[in-house]
C-alpha cells in the first residue's frame, strides 16, 4: 500500500513533468504574477487587467490577423520561481512577450534571462530604479512609474506650495530608501532641506516613540514612505497624535494606494501625494476603461491594473507597427514610440522608461482621491 502510494506519487510527477501545451497561430502573452504571497491582491489585478486587454484586442480581431492568448504563471513572490517560470514560458511555451511580476528583485533577476533568450518584457508593476535607466537591457521596457517619475515633479510642487523644511519617515528596506534618495535629491535641487530622517523596521506597530523626535525637529512637511500594513498603522497614529496640525503631511503614493485606501478610512485625509493615475481621472478614454473594468471585476481599477492593461496594449501597438512578433523588430517599434491610453499619452524614452503624466493628489472626504493639478 505504502509502496503503491510512493509509486503513484512518482507517476503523477512524471506525468505533470511531461505535460505540455502548444498553441498554433496565436500571439502568446506570458504573464508571470505573484498570485500567492504578500502581493496576491494587486497581482490578481495585474492578471485581470492583462486578460481584459487581451479580450478587447481579440474582439477587434487581434493584430496582424492573429488572436492573443494569455498564459498565466504564479511566481509566488519568489525570485527563483519567477526565473523558472520565465524559462518555462520562453523555452517550453514559446511566448512572444512577457509581463513580469511585482517584485523588483525578481524582475532584476529575470532581466538577464530575458536578454539571453532575446524575449521582450514589459514591466507593469515593479518599481526599482535599476530596471530602466543606465542599468536597462535591450529587451526590458517599463510603462509603470519608478520613483523619479513621481518624485521629481512632486518635490518641485511641494517646495513651491508646502514648505522648505522636510522630515522623512519610512520603512527600512531598499525601496523606501531609494525613493527617499530621489526625493532628497530633487528637494535639495529646488532649495529645500532635509532636517531629519527616521527609518523604522517593517511591521512596526507603535510609532509614538518616533513622533517626539519629529516634533522636536519642527519640520514644515512630514514625508512618509511606506506601504501596506505599515502605512495603515503609521497613518492612523499620525492622525491620532495630531501631527497634521503642526506640519503638512505628504507621502509617496504607495502610502495611500487603492488597495489600502479603504483601510485608512478618513485617517488619510489631507495627505498630499503625486501619482500618475487614479481611477477618477477625468478623460474620455479613462471613463470607458473604468466602466469596462467595473463591469468585469466589480471594483475600480488601481494604477497597477491600469499599467498592466496599458502594457499589453502598448506592446500590441508595437507588434502592429513592426508587422511581426520578432523581438528585435518589437524592440525597435517600442523605442521612442508614443501610446495613448486611459491614463493619457506617453512616450517610451531611450532609457526604456515611459514618461508618464503625473498629478498632484490630495486625499479628501474620507479616502477620496482629489486631483489638485497636473504636476509635470
Amino acid at each position: 500500500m505504502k509502496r503503491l502510494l510512493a509509486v503513484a506519487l512518482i507517476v503523477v510527477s512524471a506525468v505533470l513533468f511531461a505535460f505540455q501545451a502548444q498553441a498554433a497561430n496565436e500571439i502568446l502573452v506570458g504573464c508571470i504574477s505573484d498570485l500567492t504571497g504578500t502581493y496576491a491582491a494587486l497581482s490578481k489585478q495585474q492578471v485581470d487587467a492583462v486578460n481584459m486587454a487581451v479580450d478587447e484586442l481579440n474582439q477587434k480581431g487581434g493584430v496582424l490577423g492573429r488572436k492573443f492568448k494569455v498564459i498565466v504563471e504564479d511566481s509566488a513572490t519568489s525570485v527563483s520561481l519567477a526565473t523558472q517560470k520565465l524559462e518555462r514560458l520562453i523555452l517550453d511555451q514559446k511566448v512572444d512577450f512577457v509581463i513580469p511580476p511585482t517584485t523588483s528583485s525578481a524582475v532584476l533577476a529575470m532581466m538577464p534571462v530575458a536578454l539571453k533568450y532575446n524575449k521582450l518584457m514589459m514591466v507593469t508593476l515593479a518599481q526599482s530604479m535599476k530596471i530602466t535607466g543606465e542599468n536597462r537591457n535591450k529587451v526590458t521596457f517599463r510603462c509603470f512609474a519608478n520613483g523619479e517619475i513621481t518624485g521629481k515633479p512632486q518635490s518641485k510642487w511641494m517646495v513651491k506650495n508646502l514648505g522648505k523644511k522636510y522630515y522623512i519617515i519610512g520603512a527600512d528596506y531598499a525601496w523606501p530608501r531609494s525613493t527617499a534618495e530621489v526625493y532628497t535629491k530633487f528637494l535639495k535641487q529646488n532649495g529645500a532641506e532635509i532636517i531629519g530622517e527616521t527609518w523604522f523596521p517593517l511591521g512596526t506597530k507603535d510609532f509614538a516613540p518616533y513622533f517626539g523626535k519629529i516634533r522636536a525637529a519642527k519640520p514644515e512637511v512630514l514625508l512618509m514612505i511606506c506601504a501596506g500594513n505599515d502605512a495603515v498603522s503609521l497613518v492612523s497614529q499620525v492622525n491620532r497624535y495630531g501631527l497634521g496640525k503642526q506640519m503638512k503631511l505628504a507621502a509617496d503614493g504607495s502610502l495611500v494606494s487603492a488597495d489600502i485606501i479603504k483601510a485608512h478610512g478618513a485617517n488619510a485625509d489631507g495627505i498630499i501625494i503625486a501619482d500618475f493615475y487614479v481611477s477618477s481621472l477625468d478623460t474620455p478614454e479613462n471613463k470607458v476603461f473604468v466602466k469596462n473594468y467595473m463591469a468585469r471585476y466589480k471594483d475600480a481599477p488601481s494604477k497597477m491594473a491600469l499599467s498592466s492593461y496599458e502594457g499589453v496594449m502598448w506592446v500590441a501597438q508595437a507588434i502592429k507597427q513592426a508587422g511581426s512578433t520578432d523581438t528585435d523588430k518589437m524592440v525597435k517599434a517600442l523605442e521612442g514610440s508614443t501610446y495613448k491610453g486611459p491614463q493619457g499619452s506617453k512616450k517610451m524614452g531611450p532609457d526604456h522608461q515611459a514618461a508618464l503624466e503625473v498629478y498632484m493628489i490630495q486625499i479628501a472626504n474620507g479616502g477620496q482621491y482629489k486631483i489638485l493639478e497636473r504636476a509635470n
Partner: protein
Amino acid sequence: MAKLNSGSNFKKTFLVHAIILAALAVLPLFLNGYHQKLAVEAIILSVFAMSLDLVMGYAGIATFGHAAFFGIGGYAMGVMLKFLFPSLWLGLILAGFCTAILAFLIGFVSIRAKGIYFAILTLAFAEVVYRIIFHSYNTPLGGSDGLVGVPTPMLHLGFFDIDLRNTVNFYWVAVAFAYLSYLVCKLIVGSPFGSILSGIRENENRVPFLGFNVKWSKVTAFVLAGIFAGFSGAMFTAFKTYADTEQLNFLLSGKVIVMALIGGIGTLIGPMVGAVVITIFESVISTYFRAHHLIIGALFVIVVIFMPKGLLGLFARKDRNNNGS
C-alpha cells in the same frame, strides 16, 4: 546502502552507482530547455538537502537556520564572479571559507543549548544574517534588490575548459558536483567520526563516557553541513546568475527540512531525492494549481504520517534486511 569498501558489496555498489550516473548523464538529451534548467536546479538543491542530513539525520540536531549557509555561499560566489575573479573554483573556495567561519561562530555559540533551544538559536542567527544582507542597500550586495547580473563563468579543468553558459554542460557539472559531495559525505558518515555522530543522536549522555567530546563533534558536524550548504548555494548562484535574500530566508530553511524529511533523513540519498521531488513539484504544480503550497503541505503530512522514513525508506527496507545491518 552497502559500505564503499567491502568485497562483493563493493562491486554491487559500484554497479548501482555506475547505472545511476549513466542514467543521469543521458537524461538531459531527453529533456527540453526548461526541464533541463529545472533538473540542474533540483540537482544543486539536492546537495543542500543532503548537507542538512549531516546534522539532522546523523547527529540528530535540528536546525532552523540552514538557509543562512546556502545564502552566504551564494553571495560569496556572486561577489567572486561579479567583482573579483570569474572562476568557479575560487567562488567555491570563498563560499566554503565564508560558510565555515559563519557555521563555526553560530555553532560554537549555540551548541551549549540543546534540542529546540539550539534550533531557535540557529533560526535567530540566520535571521540576523538575513537582515544584514536585506538592509545592505547601497552596498554592492544590493540589499533587498539582490545581487544581480552575476556572470556565468568558464570551468577551468587544467587541460580544457567547460562553457557553463550551456545548460547541458552545467547539468553534467552539477551531477559531478552532487556525486562528489555525496561520496565525501558518505565517507564522513562511514568514518569513526560518523559513528560518534550517530552515538550522539541515539544517546548524547553516554558518548562522553566512551571518551569522545560531544560539543566539538557537534560543532564539527555543524560546520561540515554548513560548508556543503555553502557549496550548494554557490553553485545555485553561478547557475541562476543572481544571489537574492530569498536564499537566506527562513522559508528556505523550512523548505529544506521538508525536502529532507520527505526523502528520508539519515540516508544522505533520501534528502537528495526529496529535494528533487519538491523542486519539480513546486515548479510544475504551481503552473496548474494556485494552491501549490497546500499540495506540498499535504504531501508532507502524508509522508510524515504514513512513511516516517520518507520516500526512500520504503525502498531501503528490503535492502537493509538483506545486508543484515
